[in-house]
């Protein structure tokens, strides 16, 4: 039925099955859209955030998707700047995934601010001292760059490409892609870092506060590292899922292993830095603020207990690092998937503790722990955003030639 749109040389599932899947996603999105409507119409009381938890699941999602969207800029960096040509086989997917992540982030921000009609104040009345201003500027410009990067991929659609102008345009765009990649890398470095900086500068929140270099706290650099360490993992994970779901081979193993190796190495490096950082924080920064490590965690197994630290750095840190760095492990398809998944989860936990746990820790000696759990509206809109991501990937996979190797791998 939609055969005319499907890229030549590849096979796609029956349109009815695809339609069913799309409708399923649309149903989820509809549910989320209702939640979004409620939030915009009735204001933020629809969430379970409160005066202690100004940041909730949305900001966690926001930071997570931006970190995980780091795959786009880093793969682009490897491909266009460092010239690792092999990665051209996966760069389209990485770019699409990145674009989805950043689009989601902007959507979430539109939900999360109390007065969306005034959202532009952040640009017009920008406070240059605020890390959030830096984030807003960089994310927005980087999103534009990502759109430009995505554009040629979209224009490669078989029907669009028939247009001579479009064809030439996308071809030319491809030629200059390294320029955009370079700009993108620069912008990404800054906002990934600034997101970390947002929390690192909070000398009033000892849990997040870090000293650092010039105007940047260490979290600035750690966040960049963690984004690089997890973004490609998400790209790999999506590739793996696509291969499993469609039952087709999309990328040659050497490409995947190469990316996994790079990711693994960076993850190891990140973990080393993160361990040093955590040690310094626990032994120097906290005492200076009159706090102890114990005060920063709600016991061992409380909602904000020490288990979070072990989960983040141990289960979802060291384990994926070992899997990805060890050739024997990463060559196993399933272990590789687990490694990538754990890597992503570790980063999500990291972002979660920085956004939510930072706020949960009592600041006053006499104050109590307060626990936050999202309302259904927050869950629904969050799930909606993930569903939109799935929708975009499904459409992109079906109608765009994302994987140049696909025809030859599936004769």
């Amino acid at each position, binding site marked *: 039925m939609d055969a005319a749109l499907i890229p030549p040389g590849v096979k796609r599932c029956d349109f009815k099955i695809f339609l069913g899947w799309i409708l399923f996603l649309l149903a989820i999105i509809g549910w989320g859209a209702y939640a979004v409507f409620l939030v915009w119409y009735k204001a*933020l*009381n629809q969430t379970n955030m409160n005066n202690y938890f100004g940041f909730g699941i949305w900001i966690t999602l926001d930071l997570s998707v931006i970190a995980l969207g780091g795959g786009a800029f880093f793969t682009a960096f490897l491909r266009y700047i460092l010239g690792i040509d092999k990665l051209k086989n996966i760069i389209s997917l990485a770019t699409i995934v990145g674009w989805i992540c950043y689009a989601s982030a902007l959507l979430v921000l539109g939900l999360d601010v109390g007065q969306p009609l005034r959202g532009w104040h952040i640009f017009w009345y920008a406070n240059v001292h605020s890390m959030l201003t830096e984030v807003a500027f960089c994310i927005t410009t980087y999103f534009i760059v990502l759109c430009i990067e995505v554009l040629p991929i979209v224009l490669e659609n078989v029907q669009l490409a028939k247009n001579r102008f479009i064809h030439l345009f996308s071809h030319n765009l491809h030629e200059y892609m390294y320029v955009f990649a370079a700009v993108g890398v620069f912008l990404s470095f800054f906002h990934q870092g600034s997101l970390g900086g947002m929390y690192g500068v*909070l000398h009033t929140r000892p849990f997040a506060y870090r000293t650092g270099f010039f*105007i940047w706290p260490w979290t600035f650099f750690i966040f960049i590292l963690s984004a690089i360490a997890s973004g490609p993992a998400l790209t790999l994970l999506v590739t793996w899922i696509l291969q499993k779901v469609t039952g087709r081979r999309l990328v040659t193993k050497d490409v995947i292993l190469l990316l996994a190796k790079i990711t693994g190495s960076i993850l190891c490096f990140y973990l080393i830095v993160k361990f040093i950082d955590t040690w310094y924080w626990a032994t120097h920064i906290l005492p200076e*603020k009159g706090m102890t490590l114990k005060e920063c965690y709600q016991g061992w197994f409380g909602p904000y207990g020490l288990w979070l630290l072990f989960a983040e750095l141990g289960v979802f840190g060291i384990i994926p690092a070992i899997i990805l760095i060890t050739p024997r492990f990463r060559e196993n398809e399933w272990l590789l998937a687990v490694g990538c998944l754990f890597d992503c989860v570790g980063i999500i936990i990291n972002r979660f503790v920085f956004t939510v746990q930072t706020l949960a820790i009592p*600041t006053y000696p*006499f104050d109590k722990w307060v626990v936050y759990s999202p309302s259904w509206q927050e869950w629904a809109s969050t799930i909606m955003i993930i569903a939109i991501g799935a929708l975009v990937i499904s459409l992109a996979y079906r109608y765009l030639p994302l994987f140049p190797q696909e025809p030859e791998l599936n004769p």
Partner: protein
Amino acid sequence: MKHEHKYKSGPEKYVMVIDIDKCTGCGACVIACAVENNLPVRTDETRKLLSVDWLVIYKITNGKPFPKTRIAYIPRGCMHCDNPMCVHVCPASATDKDDKGVVSQIYPRCFGCRYCMAACPYHARVFNWWDPTFPKGTERGLNPDVSTRMRGVVEKCSFCNHRYQRAKEKAMLEGRTTLRDGEYITACAEACPTGAITFGNVKDPNSKVSKLVKSPYAFRLLEKFGTEPSVYYISRQEWVRREADRYFEEKAKKISKE
């Protein structure tokens, strides 16, 4: 590296001194603040973390078992820090620190990102989760000197800045550009029936506050965070000082010496 706000005060620097030993926790200050500043009320205000309160009274206990238990009350508004993290982080410049020491909050500028709330360890900043509501008919009693806030913005204690504006207008008509002690005080300080709250210009050597802040029993909340609050507390009870601050022993020693 510290993110220090380079704050320079002018000839006026307003501070508040709260004597915890005198505070009976009656709440007159809270009500006076609410009436003065047009705080909204909802029918169910029992979820305190969703309430719009500029001034709250914390009840702290010495943690000892019955019958040795003691309690004390700590009224807490905005600290108007000299190193205000909230001002530093606000992306839309909706808040600043002026030369008389007041940290402002401009409601029509704020777009509700709540970063300032995350930055404030005192929980002085509150968010308008709802459109503000006033019991039917009581809108007639709204104070025109203070604008009401719309949903989705952050608000906080302003040290009753409109009272400063009012006092200043009167003084300017008389050709003065400075205020006398007591011409500008906050609604809470004025209402306090036990006189626990004192407010004034700490740079005026004759003001009451300039003497009170020198008390060996004076301290500020969370001093270790380096925020340099403009609200001082006084208590002669050691346990109160210890509970109210991330207390450090050097200070305890200093007091015991005196």
